[in-house]
């Protein structure tokens, strides 16, 4: 038995839409505290998994416990204690920022009078204090996403579920959101987030599962996965196939993955490969350390990014 209660415990969790299997018998065990990531490309089944966890989508097969309660029976209790940041922002366009939060509090049976101070706090947390009375149409995409985050915290949730929290946002806003999510982690909340950005997963997630075609194809801590599953050095190479073939012959200690026009060359030992590349000529290359993208490519043979 785990010492701490598991926040999410799924066995053989499956979702079929007609004859398409969106989630194909996944097992999840998410401990309390920290950030757990579902990493996978578009269409992998991330949103569908979250929707089952929130009791928004009926489970085709398998068992699911959330916050120690059986789903879907405990749907209302689970939602009462959980916050959701949806993939598509859906704040009410007819209300101002503050009105959105006030109305959302009502849905959780929080009285508008008791919630005033909390709303101020939340607006400050997501840096929207000066926008409290702005109508939604005056907000940028990044502001709307920050409002979604504030809204997800209105009920002081134990678990916060975030579906691609920074997709489509510019770098400054992404960084700001990452900082806030780290703060939430520190304050003891459990975060469950989906992403198809490996940098996001590496930065935020303490544990993650990699999903492809509705199946879990890998899991672990991001750093440890990179260390154990791929070579530390990556050379992204472009050039003629014949030149690549010559490189492969002259350099025995490399592993090559080819995606479209781009060749990924993996090695434990950088110096010899670099000198091979120099003598081969005709090839342009860029060196970088290995990341989760490479882990994903190794597992699936295709890329994570779109």
């Amino acid at each position, binding site marked *: 038995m785990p010492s701490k209660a598991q926040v999410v415990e799924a066995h053989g969790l499956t979702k079929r*839409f007609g004859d398409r299997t969106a989630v194909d018998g996944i097992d999840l065990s998410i401990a309390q505290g920290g950030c757990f990531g579902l990493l996978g490309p578009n269409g992998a089944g991330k949103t569908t998994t979250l929707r089952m966890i*929130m009791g*928004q*989508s*009926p489970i085709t097969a398998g068992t699911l416990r959330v916050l120690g309660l059986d789903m879907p029976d405990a*749907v*209302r209790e689970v*939602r*009462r204690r*959980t916050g*959701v940041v*949806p993939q*598509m922002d*859906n*704040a*009410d*366009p*007819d*209300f101002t920022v503050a*009105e959105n939060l006030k*109305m*959302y509090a*009502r*849905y*959780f*049976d929080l009285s508008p009078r008791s919630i005033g101070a909390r709303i101020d706090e939340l607006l400050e947390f997501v840096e929207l204090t000066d926008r409290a009375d702005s109508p939604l149409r005056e907000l940028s995409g990044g502001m709307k996403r920050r409002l979604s985050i504030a809204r*997800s915290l209105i*009920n002081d949730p134990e678990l916060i579920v975030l579906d691609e929290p920074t997709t489509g946002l510019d770098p400054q806003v992404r960084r700001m959101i990452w900082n806030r999510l780290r703060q939430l982690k520190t304050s003891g909340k459990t975060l469950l987030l989906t992403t198809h950005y490996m940098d996001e997963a590496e930065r935020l997630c303490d544990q993650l599962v990699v999903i492809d075609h509705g199946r879990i194809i890998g899991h672990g801590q991001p750093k440890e996965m990179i260390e154990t599953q791929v070579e530390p050095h990556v050379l992204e190479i472009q050039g003629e196939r014949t030149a690549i073939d010559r490189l492969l012959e002259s350099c025995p200690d490399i592993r090559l993955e080819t995606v479209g026009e781009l060749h990924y060359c993996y090695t434990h030992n950088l110096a010899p490969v670099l000198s091979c590349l120099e003598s081969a000529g005709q090839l342009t290359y860029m060196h970088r350390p290995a990341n989760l993208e490479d882990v994903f490519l190794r597992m699936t043979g295709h890329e994570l990014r779109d």
Partner: protein
Amino acid sequence: MTAAQLSLPRPRASAFKVWFRNLMVWRKLIAPSLFFTFGEPFVYLLGLGFGLGRFVGEVNGMPYLTFLASGLVASTAMNTASFEGMYSVFTRMVHQQTYDALLATPLQVDDIVAGEMLWCGTKAVLAATPILIVSVLLGAVDDWTAVLAIPLFYLIGLCFAGPAVVVAAFAPSYDFFNYYVALLVTPMFIFSGVFYPIETLPEFAQTIVQILPLSHAIALVRPLVAGEFPPVVGIHLAVLVAYAVVGYLAATVFIRRRLIT
């Protein structure tokens, strides 16, 4: 259809939260909303009531203005609930994803459907009552019995809300609503006795009109506006209540089917 979709609705007090949300939005948009719900019936009332009334004189023993006003308040309740149940529900369900936001809180699909039904009734009252008041100012209303028409507006709203929400549940886009409006709402408006007594219609047309709810709504509202109690109440009330109940059940089933995937 699954057993879960077909099970009886489980309405709870939380439905009022959905209702309250809609009320707050309405309050913000009150000016344009009043203009549109008000404008058209007002034009009918002035244009037809005074213009046509001069030639028509009395109909069914009442001035034409009274006859028309009593039909228009009922049809306004119908139109308002129908449009709210279709366009507004569709907007909240699809374009704004408002229901998705609600379904991340303890609210459930059945609360949403019940809340929208309650709101459609309210909106019907909010739209039809001002026209009743204008009718009073124009001298078309005879007695305090007209006040009893106001709760009827609510029932008429409920009665048309269900079918409209069902249409929204099937709609792929806004264009879909044109069919329902062209095939049912507009014909009801023209043929159900708003502008002339249904007795002038051929026998078979009267039968069709009496299967549809608007003629029954008018049969109750018209005498009240003209200052008397309706001679027949039971059957008309029964038809309206039946439409409201069956519409509510169907709306719940089909919205569940659309939202719970």
